């Protein structure tokens, strides 16, 4: 992982709120992170932790209303996407930034052929002729390892297996040589053997194409295998950020530590009893004024009730939002309001 690589995406103080009938849900709270060229940034967290919403917020893919981006900056190549007009945003989506979503069955339009769905971004962003787009589509399918690519262009999504469908999704995301690929739980819906295939494919593609990848998952195993750097999210906030080995070897946030312990393994020592995190994730109904993990935290003390901890630097590229880590310096731009 080259520390000197330039930053392609810089997110600062992003706040996203959903307005529902029963009040506001503060889904993303003051999230700040950056993405360096060519790295694979893993984002891990349970459902409701805000990891998907954060990524959807970046390119305005949340339905607004009910979603509303309260504040923040998303700088892609120096352009603030939150202030960009619709046309600019559309040029970025599918162009500079590609997306892969969780369920390849529902994420592909069932009534259009795979070829049509592949050609769409090519013709829009690259202005290709139908013929050129077709050739490129074949190339892309071959790139993601789909045999008989040319024949399969006229097939519909349901005629592909789950793994093949996700390959098609990846081909679409890669169509216009994106600088950034955002993959939102891309292997969650797949079987382990297929997941292994896709993980291998992604590693291969990244090394060949060199784009930066944000990989959202709840599976620590996947993160361990693929990520260079990891963001841990909880309750709409980033609670820990670290290089992958550092995170697994030396988790500094109690949540990260507990999460690592709850996961059983297929090898090594078998635990007599699974470690659990008692309680439920927090309801994000108000702007947080306390640590979101305090109710489930074994180390919580009275300050955690009163104040939401900032992200304190605890090592090289490693920070954690916990008062236990306070000895370090506060991340410059990540002080929770």
């Amino acid at each position: 992982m080259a520390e000197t690589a330039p930053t392609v995406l810089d997110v600062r103080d992003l706040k996203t709120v959903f307005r529902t009938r029963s009040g506001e849900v503060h889904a993303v709270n003051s999230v700040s992170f950056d993405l360096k060229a060519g790295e694979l940034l893993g984002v891990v967290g349970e459902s409701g932790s805000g990891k998907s919403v954060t990524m959807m917020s970046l390119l305005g893919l949340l339905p607004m209303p009910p979603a509303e981006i309260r504040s923040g900056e998303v700088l892609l190549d120096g352009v603030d996407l939150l202030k960009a007009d619709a046309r600019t945003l559309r040029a970025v989506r599918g162009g500079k930034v590609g997306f892969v979503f969780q369920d390849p069955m529902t994420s592909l339009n069932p009534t259009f052929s795979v070829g049509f769905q592949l050609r769409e971004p090519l013709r829009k962003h690259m202005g290709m002729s139908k013929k050129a787009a077709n050739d490129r589509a074949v190339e892309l399918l071959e790139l993601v390892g789909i045999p008989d690519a040319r024949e399969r262009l006229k097939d519909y999504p349901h005629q592909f297996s789950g793994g093949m469908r996700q390959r098609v999704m990846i081909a679409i995301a890669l169509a216009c040589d994106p600088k950034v690929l955002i993959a939102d739980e891309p292997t969650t819906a797949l079987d382990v053997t297929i997941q292994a295939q896709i993980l291998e494919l992604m590693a291969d593609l990244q090394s060949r194409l060199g784009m930066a990848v944000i990989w959202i998952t709840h599976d620590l195993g996947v993160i361990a295998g693929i990520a260079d750097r990891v963001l841990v999210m909880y309750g709409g906030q980033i609670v820990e950020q670290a290089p992958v080995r550092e995170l697994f070897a030396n988790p500094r946030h109690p949540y990260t530590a507990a999460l690592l312990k709850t996961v059983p393994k297929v090898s090594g020592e078998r635990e007599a009893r699974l470690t659990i995190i008692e309680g439920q994730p927090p309801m994000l109904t108000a702007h947080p004024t306390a640590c979101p993990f305090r109710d489930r935290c074994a180390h919580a003390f009275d300050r955690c009730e009163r104040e939401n901890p900032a992200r304190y630097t605890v090592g090289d590229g490693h920070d954690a939002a916990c008062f236990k880590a306070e000895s370090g310096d506060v991340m410059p731009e990540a002080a929770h309001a």
Partner: protein
Amino acid sequence: MLTYAIRRLLLSIPTLLFIALVIFLLLELAPGDPMAQVPLTVPDEVKARMREALGLGRPWPVRFGLWLYQFFWVEPMVFLDWLTNSSFLFGWLPDTSFSAGMDRVISWQTRGPVMDLVVQRLPQTLWVVGMSYVVGVLIALPIGILSAYRQYSVFDNVGTFVSMVGYSIPPFFSGVLVIVIFSVQLGWLPSIYDTTHVVTDWASFKVQVQQMILPVMVLALQTTAQLSRFMRASMLDNLGQDYVRTARAKGMTEWVVVLTHVLRNSMIPVVTVIALGIPAIFGGAIITEQVFKVNGIGQLLITQIQANDLPTVQTLTFIFAVLIVMFNLIADLLYGILDPRIRYD
């Protein structure tokens, strides 16, 4: 798909025969007398003789069998004869007379062949009810799409209100209302439909359009109300789907997202609903036809029901049953054609 269609067609035969029997028995058991409209001045024994002449003296299984024979054997023969004698298509074939000497299904009230009545009534029904259906569909689809896309907007709320009005105001009210406004008060449009009007030139075409406006308007309001709601619901279902997010993530414009990706999927159920509504066109719109004196199939059915004209009512309701069964099949097949995920075998 073909096997599926054939299988369904074969299955529909016993279904339809059963429907025919049920209709017959229902009509048979319903109270009422074909002589009820004959004035009281006609003595009872004359009425009894008239009933006898209609064949009412025979037991019902005989009459049902006769009707089956007439409907399924004689009428097709008559149709064949017509094809070879006077139709455009097969007029060059040697004239046939398969049906010579056969008794057709005869209406008790008009003493004419029922199928001739149907053929006579179809044009105006198809023109008026069919046109209103087309107009209704053409209005309903954009309204439904826009209502869904701008859910809870002013437009959507107005659409909801208009649909509610369309649903809840019966045509015998709205029909009379528009007659009072446009025919009586303003005098712009006729209140009575002229079924004998023939379009020959621009002026007569204008007359035809004028006399169609009111009934089409009243009927289209209902179609629009129902379909636009359905279209809206279908669009809303699909707007929330993952593939819409994918399309947006590919940088597609909203126009493409909505009118290409979402519309195609939303149309699948809507098209089948539209197909299922088509038999209703042939069935006519009983009340509206009555209000505007568009003497089509619906009006025929209601007058013959009032007259207890069993053969006509039996034949008409059975034709509706056939149409409904057929269009159900067509709707299912359409579903298979439109939705690549569905394959019949």
